[in-house]
């Protein structure tokens, strides 16, 4: 009796596994279609979207070669700008917001309280509210190049980062820093050699959140940067459509494939951290 019930339970679980496996295949399907269509001649992408690129449909690497200079802008350049902007922004945000968060958590002043309140407040502001004035301010202050736009990202992204860091710093016992002070550490040394190493798990979470945000962001760079000169990957892909009436779908898919490969590789290598980091960002507020 007992054995029979157990096997029924097992059978139920296997059915669920099978159902999920089918959903999984459906889930991967869109990405698979990108791969398939990036090797297909443009004329067949629209008519035979779901067919394998065999025979006369097969385009070889033509789409990738064409895609490199497609849209009157070298794709490599936009990859480069995306990498520079993302890494610099993440670095600036991690370094400066963690320092500010430690200060806010440890020093009891009205200014700190106001600043912290403003940070929390800024998390619920939609970008549309400030997009016009922010782009004009950035223009005026000459922050409209890939080398300076990280400062804008630091400003608009500070809220969430400070909120997460303050939450973590408050859970660190004060005694550790007091011991450091007794041993003769000044605030600077206390922060960099005592506090900073302890912040590592939150650093990873915040870092991943900011990297995903900046890498995929379209609206802020398109408003701030001069897009004739500087394009990030999302801008490049959006302007493939904008520059022509009809789009070369084969080449577009080739570029999309090239732009999601690094993301998927990054995801598969540090999956655990990414899921943890993204989930931590959800519990804000």
């Amino acid at each position, binding site marked *: 009796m007992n054995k029979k019930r157990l096997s029924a339970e097992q059978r139920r679980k296997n059915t669920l596994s099978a159902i999920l496996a089918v959903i999984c295949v459906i889930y991967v399907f869109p990405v698979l279609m990108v791969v398939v269509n990036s090797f297909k001649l443009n004329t067949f992408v629209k008519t035979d979207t779901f067919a394998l690129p065999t025979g006369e449909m097969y385009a070889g690497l033509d789409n990738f070669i064409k895609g490199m200079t497609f849209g009157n802008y070298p794709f490599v350049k936009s990859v480069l700008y995306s990498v520079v902007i993302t890494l610099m922004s993440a670095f*600036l945000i991690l370094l400066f917001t963690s320092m500010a968060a430690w200060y806010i958590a440890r020093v009891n002043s009205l200014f700190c309280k106001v600043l912290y309140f403003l940070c929390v407040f800024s998390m619920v502001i939609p970008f549309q*509210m400030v997009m016009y004035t922010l782009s004009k301010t950035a223009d005026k202050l000459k922050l409209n190049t890939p080398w300076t736009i990280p400062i804008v990202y630091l400003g608009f992204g500070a809220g969430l980062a400070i909120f997460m860091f303050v939450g973590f710093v408050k859970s660190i016992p004060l005694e550790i820093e007091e011991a450091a002070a007794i041993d003769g550490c000044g*605030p600077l040394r206390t*922060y960099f050699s005592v506090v900073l190493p302890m912040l590592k798990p939150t650093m990873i979470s915040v870092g991943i959140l900011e990297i995903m945000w900046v*890498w995929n962001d379209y609206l802020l760079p398109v408003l701030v940067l001069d897009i004739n000169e500087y394009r990030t990957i999302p801008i490049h892909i959006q302007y493939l459509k904008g520059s022509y009436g009809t789009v070369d779908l084969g080449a577009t898919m080739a570029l999309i494939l090239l732009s999601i490969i690094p993301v998927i590789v990054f995801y598969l290598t540090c999956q655990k951290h990414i899921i943890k980091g993204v989930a931590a960002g959800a519990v804000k507020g």
Partner: protein
Amino acid sequence: MKTKKISNSNSIQRATRMWSPLFLGPVVAAFCIGFVWPFIQGIWLSLCRFKLVSDAKFIGFDNYIKAFQDASFTHAFWYTALFAVTSLVIINVLAFIVAYILTQSIRGSNLFRTVFFMPNLIGGIVLGYIWSMIFDGILSRWSTSILMDSKFGFWGLIILMCWQQVGYMMIIYIAGLQNVPGEMLEAARIDGATRMETLFKVTIPNVMPSITICVFLSLTNGFKLFDQNLALTAGQPFIIQPDGTTIRTTEMLALNIFNTFNGTGSASQGIAQAKAVIFFILVAGMGLAQLAYTRNKEVQQ
């Protein structure tokens, strides 16, 4: 002993304060450039008529009145609200079911979790183009396209958002489900509760905090949606009204504001900024409602 400790940490505080320009300076400067100043200026400009920031003229609440009279704005509002609520229900039901199955210790649950979460990392613009290719591939058999009918645009965007967000909400639900005390489930089983009874009377009440988070998250995500909307349909199909204005039938609020900023009318920048302020009040209101709701819950517990 105790007093000594307090005075000690006070002296640390005093030493730390001397370094405040270094610790706070960069963030405060960038925060003012990237948030505080644009925010204040944005509120001021919503009360002005302007083409350039330098020639803004105060006109009171005129922009707000014009924004509410703008048929494309009210259309975008109702369209967005309908979209946000529909996607909220579908995404959360699907995510909860998947999370519930995945926590039943079935085979391959790690692989499933990895796959379901993956679309989250792909940016909105790229997602839009991937799906517009797929939808057009299907619809071309009936020689139509996603840009032809606003119903296709609506449900297309819902499918896209489900694909992107179910995995994300699933992660939050899994965390919630794993926190349901095992003894409670055991007790329900011993008392002879059926699987459904256990689900609705034990499991769901215990994951209410996760449900609250996910509901508010998908609601605000739906309202703030921009990239996917722009890349998938960009508001098409358009309807030209008798009075000459255009309604972009699948245009959501954020895109409507963006398009108004790019408008050519002499007052359109001011109206766009007024719309942005209304949009901000709407979204911030949801955030505050969530905060109040969760605070309230915490007090009760």
